[in-house]
């Protein structure tokens, strides 16, 4: 038991004190991460097709998994914060002076190690946030002159992010870096027991045994940190503000822009600093500035031998802390005021919710990974395709599909709920038919349909209006919209009557449209199967087909015939417009 006594029960010169709990608390945060990290690793699978998936499963299907992950991630941030604060405290209190310069230098090694642990950890869940926030340091690494590109290739296991990037990051994050940091922290803990400033002077307070005086203080401080960590993890759950702990965004997608890409909060200062470096020089900001800062800090024990030097050290430490804080606040306030950033955050949250809903759906996650689910999901891809290809003319509920508002006024119909009764009713409304939501911006704004609605329908008798309502129900039933199934089933009789009415002279539909009977003279879109999946798919593929607008087609491109979009994309767009997508019965 002598080694035990040696480690824990030796006398500490200068007596016990709260200030001496720093190293114990740092060790505690490390062990907390080591323990939670081990259990996280038992649930993790490091490849680009399984990383997100395994973290998703842990977070939402393993009992207590979210708490395990939450404690691990929040403690990591707490450790970086505590290390930085401790460094500040040591610098300001001049505890770097001999004989403790070695402690101080060790501290300067520990902080970058802790940061490296964080950076390697971000990537592992392989969600959009992790991917893009690890991507930037990796790119910066590639900019380091001479060795940069080679270092980047070795670290990434190739020239781009791949399975090997994850396997290498796991090895660094769970073995090499914790080993170095752990040994460093133990060494620091041992070193900090050296006597304070002047060993030759008689101690002001008598030496105390480490156990129990200091041990109790260390234990209290450690438990306080644990409680604080738990509070941060659990607070959002209690207040209903979110899931708590680290989020899990949608699976990483190198081809999908993620406008909300930001590093973790404690690295925001560097992110903001880099914005001040003109193109091509930020490698000096990313590598040079931190290197200079570390060098100045490392010189403190020697600079501090002079009175003026000590003042300089203190001023530098305070200036550094203040500068970092200021840069962080600038970064946060700019993002708060940036509507594009806010929109990107909202979109990322929505995609994340969707990825989780699909993963928890009846089909589960396919072997190719959860990204495949998003790639085949109309609700995810539809708005993107619409914004990219349709929104220069059309709108969706007034916006471009993603919620943006294009500068130009719409010049074609609003396609939200296309084919539904409400949509058709509005089309047949004398006021709306040539409004911006229908034919207003098109060459048909004075066409036969508009004329018919503005003159004919406007003067319909009440009985004709009732008949028109049945026609609307019948045409809308052709679409077989999933969202209208109950309504269509209920009104079967009226729909059958409506089908007969479509062909009557009173309703005048078949003067231009064909309905369930081939009509060579038809000059307007076919009402057979109007708005159904096959109809809409073919319409988007080629609106100039004789079945639709023929040669009268206004400006709409033939997305299929001209190969603007492939069949899968047109299918996604079709399903999205028809609101035919998987809907979870409850949250993930």
């Amino acid at each position, binding site marked *: 038991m002598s080694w035990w006594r040696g480690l824990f029960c030796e006398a500490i010169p200068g007596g016990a004190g709260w200030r001496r709990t720093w190293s114990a608390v740092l060790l505690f945060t490390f062990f907390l991460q080591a323990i939670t990290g081990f259990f996280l690793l038992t649930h993790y699978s490091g490849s*680009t*097709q399984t990383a997100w998936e395994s973290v998703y499963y842990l977070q939402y299907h393993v009992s207590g998994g979210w708490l395990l992950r939450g404690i691990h991630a929040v403690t990591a941030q707490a450790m970086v914060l505590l290390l930085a604060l401790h460094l500040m405290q040591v610098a300001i209190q001049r505890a770097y002076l001999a004989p403790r310069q070695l402690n101080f230098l060790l501290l300067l090694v520990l902080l970058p190690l802790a940061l490296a642990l964080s950076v390697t950890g971000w990537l592992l869940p392989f969600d959009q946030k992790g991917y*893009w926030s690890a*991507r*930037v340091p990796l*790119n*910066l690494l*590639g*900019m380091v002159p001479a060795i940069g*590109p*080679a270092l980047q*290739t*070795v670290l*990434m*296991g*190739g*020239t*781009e992010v*791949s*399975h*090997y990037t994850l396997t*290498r990051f796991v090895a660094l994050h769970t073995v090499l870096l914790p080993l170095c940091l752990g040994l460093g922290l133990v060494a620091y803990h041992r070193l900090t027991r050296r006597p304070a400033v002047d060993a030759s002077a008689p101690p002001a307070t008598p030496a105390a045994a480490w156990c129990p005086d200091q041990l109790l203080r260390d234990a209290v401080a450690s438990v306080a940190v644990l409680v604080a960590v738990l509070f941060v993890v659990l607070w959002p759950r209690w207040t209903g503000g979110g899931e708590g702990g680290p989020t899990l965004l949608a699976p990483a997608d190198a*081809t*999908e*822009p*993620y*406008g*909300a*890409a930001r590093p973790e909060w404690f690295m925001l200062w560097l992110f903001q600093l*880099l*914005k001040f*470096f*003109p*193109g*091509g020089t*930020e*490698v000096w900001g990313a590598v040079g500035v931190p290197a200079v800062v570390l060098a100045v800090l490392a010189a403190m024990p020697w600079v501090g031998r002079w009175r003026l030097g000590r003042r300089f050290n203190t001023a530098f430490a305070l200036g550094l802390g203040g500068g970092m804080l200021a840069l962080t606040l600038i970064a946060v306030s700019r993002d708060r005021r940036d509507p*594009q*950033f806010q929109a*990107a955050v909202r979109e990322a949250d929505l995609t994340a919710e969707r990825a989780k809903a699909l993963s928890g759906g009846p089909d589960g996650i396919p072997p190719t990974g959860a990204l495949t689910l998003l790639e085949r999901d109309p609700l995810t891809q539809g708005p993107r395709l619409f914004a*990219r*290809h349709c929104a*220069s003319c059309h709108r969706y509920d007034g916006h471009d599909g993603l919620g*943006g508002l294009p*500068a130009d006024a719409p010049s074609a119909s609003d396609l939200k709920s296309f084919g539904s009764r409400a949509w058709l009713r509005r089309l047949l409304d004398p006021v709306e038919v040539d409004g911006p939501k229908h034919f207003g911006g098109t060459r048909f704004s004075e066409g036969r349909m508009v004329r018919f609605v503005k003159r004919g329908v406007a003067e319909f008798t009440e009985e004709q209006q009732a008949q028109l309502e049945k026609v609307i129900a019948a045409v809308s039933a052709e679409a077989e919209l999933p969202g209208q199934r109950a309504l269509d089933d209920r009104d079967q009789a009226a729909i059958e009557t409506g089908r007969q009415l479509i062909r009557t002279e009173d309703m005048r539909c078949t003067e231009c449209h064909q309905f369930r009977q081939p009509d060579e003279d038809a000059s307007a879109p076919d009402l057979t199967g109007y708005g159904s999946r096959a109809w809409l798919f073919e319409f988007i593929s080629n609106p100039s087909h004789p079945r639709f607008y023929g040669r009268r087609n206004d400006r709409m*491109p*033939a997305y299929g015939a*001209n*190969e*603007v979009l492939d069949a899968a994309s047109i299918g996604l767009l079709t399903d999205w417009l028809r609101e035919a997508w998987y809907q979870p019965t409850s949250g993930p």
Partner: protein
Amino acid sequence: MLAAGLAAFATGFPVALGVRCLLDPLRRKRRAPELFVRIANLSALPADGAPRRFPVLSERVNVWTKTRGVPVGAVFLRRLGEASVEAFNVVCPHAGCVVQVAAEGGGYLCPCHNSAFGLDGRIADPGSPSPRGLDALATELRHGEEVWVKFQNFRTGVRDQIPI
């Protein structure tokens, strides 16, 4: 002395072997620069020269998994005239984020560090952190209608266009 040598060998050998495996990506021959990939038809591009984003479908090799016909990147295509097309890689030359068509039109904007580019790909705002304009890619029109692009990625953060 002998003991020290044996110990050095006993630890040095596995370490050296491990490091050799770790450095394998450096020795791996880079794949031959991707040849021209068919992107779209000319008729898919608006006549007014507005840029459109298209995925580049090709073979993606991810260490041990290989998939064909999947997006390996994306390009902006823009019609310059009757039979002339301009192509840019969507990757920002600054830090590798994905550039978007600016909301007001008339250019491109990177959401990460606000690098702004003109429609011609050149840096539009002198405050942009990007060291160079968007990476232009060689284009070819085949059979008068098909747009083919020589798809390449370039090293980010440097002034020169260095293919990777």
